[in-house]
């Protein structure tokens, strides 16, 4: 009996930072989030790849920024600008020598909370729902009545995009 309880206590969990883009709620593993910010001034650079909005200057570090609304092909109608947040994600850009922490800024509608989800409440996304260009969805987390779409930061940009970004960084 005691053993069973212990097993229940050591249940494996995943901590995610939940955020909202459009009507849906998404989750990103907490270890891949560096910081949450209020939107900083985005400076567009010449000859930047099209999926990148521009760069920001976060305490001296130059970080490219991607707008998640555009990314998820949602209308660009802005909601409450006060709630708009910029998430700084780690490991988004492919590892390359001298690229630092490989940080990427994500513009989202709002950031809710840090949530702990037991792994058994996570289900893999149905293949039919994923589609060809949405392989960055790792699963669906259920927290009460909320359904959180869990994202993989490493696949949020396609290989080509990552390469382009790495190239741009190098330049």
């Amino acid at each position: 009996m005691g053993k069973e309880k212990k097993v229940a206590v050591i249940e494996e969990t995943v901590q995610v930072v939940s955020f909202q883009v459009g009507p849906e709620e998404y989750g990103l593993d907490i270890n891949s989030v560096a910081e949450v910010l209020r939107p900083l001034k985005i400076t567009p650079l010449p000859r930047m790849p099209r999926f990148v909005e521009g760069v920001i200057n976060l305490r001296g570090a130059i970080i490219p920024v991607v707008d998640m609304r555009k990314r998820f092909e949602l209308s660009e109608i802005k909601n409450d600008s006060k709630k708009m947040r910029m998430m700084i994600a780690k490991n988004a850009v492919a590892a390359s020598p001298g690229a630092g922490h490989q940080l990427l800024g994500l513009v989202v509608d709002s950031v809710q909370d840090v949530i702990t989800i037991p792994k058994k409440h996570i289900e893999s996304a149905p293949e039919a729902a994923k589609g060809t260009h949405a392989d960055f969805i790792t699963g669906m987390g259920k927290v009460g009545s909320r359904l959180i779409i869990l994202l993989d930061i490493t696949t949020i940009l396609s290989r080509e995009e990552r390469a382009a970004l790495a190239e741009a960084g190098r330049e």
Partner: protein
Amino acid sequence: MIGALKEKFRNSIGLKFVAALTAVISVLMIVGTIFVARMLMKGQYGALESHGLELAHYLGKAGTDAIFMKDPATIEGLVFDAVRSRDMLYTHVQDGSGAVLSGPFASFNRENPDVKALLANEKSDDVVTLAATVRKKLDALEVSIDINYQGAKIGRVTMGFSRTRIKKEAWTIIALLLGTSVGIVFALSAVVHIMARKMIVAPAAEAEAVAWNISEGNLTQSVRVRSMDEFGMLGRGLNRMIVGLKTMIGSVRDASLHVGSMSGQVRDISEKITNGGREQSEAVEEAASSVNEMHFALKEIAGNVENLHASSEHTSSAVLEMAASVDEVAGTMSSLTTSIEDTSTAIAQMSAAIKQTAENVEILSSAAEETAASANEISVSVREVESNAKQSASLAEAVAADAQQLGVRSIEKTIDGMKKIESATRQAADVVGRLRGRSESIGSILTVIEDITDQTGLLALNAAILAAQAGEHGKGFAVVAAEIRELANRTALSTQEIGKLITAVQDESREASEAMTGGLVVVEEGARLSQAAGEALRKILGRADQSRDMSRSISRASAEQAKGIKQVSEAVDKINEMTHQIARATHEQRSGSEQIAKASEKMREITRFVKSAMVEQAKGGKGISGAVEEINAKVGMVNRAAGEVRAGSDLVVKAMDRIKSIVKVNTVLAVGLNDTVEIMASLSDSLKKGVEKFKI
């Protein structure tokens, strides 16, 4: 002996009670005893019968085999044993055909002396016949039962029982019951007798003794009342009667004493009455002597009256002469009447003339009166004009006063009020404006708070992320971060609510300031209107003053007019009067004076005749005077006699006065006597009543 008992019974209520109670209880007890004995005997007989049936049944069961086998020896043995049980007189067994299976020796209880004596005389050996004899002679209770074996009747057992024992027991119980009843009757009688003697006989005897005492006139004793029952009430009634009798007899004694004293008083009064009577008789004697004197005086008076008669004849002749002269006077009087008739005709003529003049004067005076009336009417209408003018003047004054006091003042007050309202509204508008500014500054502060809250939330989120990345070490920090975040959320919510409230306040203050501006416009309008009203009122005031002045002057003028008219009418009246007087005077003077002259001549002649008649009359008067002198002398004598009569009558009067006084005393005494007699009558009445009460 029996007679004495009867006497005692008649005199004692206790004995009557005892006898009645004893009779009733004895009858009840006897009836009860008989009822109980009958019930008892019935029960006992039933018990005996059932006992016998049981015995017969057992005998049958025991002897079934023997009866079936027709074994008389065994049956004999069984019957012999059975017949010796209590109260049993006989037992016999018969088979199906009725033949007796038990012998005559075994079948009868020869221990019972009655049975033994009966059987000793009987010669028969037939058991059934013997049993019938025993039953008849000893009044036995017979019980019989059929013995059945496999549905067929194989025999019959018959038993006879004696009733003697049961009867004896029943008699014993009856005797006991009767004995007990007699005891109860005696005890109850004793109790009733004692109670009657104590509670009825003794108090009755005492009351009787007291009543005997009262009848003999001894009222010193009273009944001792011990209880509140009927006898107690009887004793109380007697006591009350004794008290009443005592008071009555006391009053009778007092009344008799009063009667004694009264009789003494009566005696005194009667003595006084006799004395008064003696004095009365003396006074009456005196009165008689003075009456005699009076008689003599009266004789003298008669003589003088004869002389008086003679002188009266002289007087009558003189009177005849006087009558003749009076005739002459009558003749002159007739001529006097004719001249008076002439005078009257003249007067008639004069009156006719006067009538005509009067008619003319009436016409004149009516014209004058008409003039006066119309003058009066004019004066009345002028007076109306005056009063109307006065009224309108007073009304105009009132209007002016009202306009001055109420209208102008209230308008001024209204204007003041309007000004105050204006200033108050301006102040309120200022306050609202300031409120609006303040709420706007609060709004700006709120945005700062909102910003700070937002940043705090963000910091907390970042802290949570960092804590989660730190793993186990960051757990405490994670909790703190979560709480800070929660606080930030709550702050954000309340800030939003405050923001909504501030917006509402701003809206409302804007509305309020708009309303104030509208109010200010209205107030200014009101002030302008009230000033206009004030102007109008002032104009009204001026007009009212003018109209008042005008009506005053009208009233003054009409008053003067009225005075003038009055003077005119007075003058007319005077003229009227004067014409009347003038007319009357002229007519009278004209015709009246001639007639009067003629009448005066005739009157002169008549006076001449009257003079001659007067001379003759004087002659007759002398004769009369002589006769009158003689009469005077006679009258003097009469006077003297009358003096004597007066003295006698004085004595009579004095005597009569004394009689009167005595009679007065007598009447007073008689009244006293009467009073005394009345008191005595009332006392005798009360005495009579007291005595009557005493009889009852």
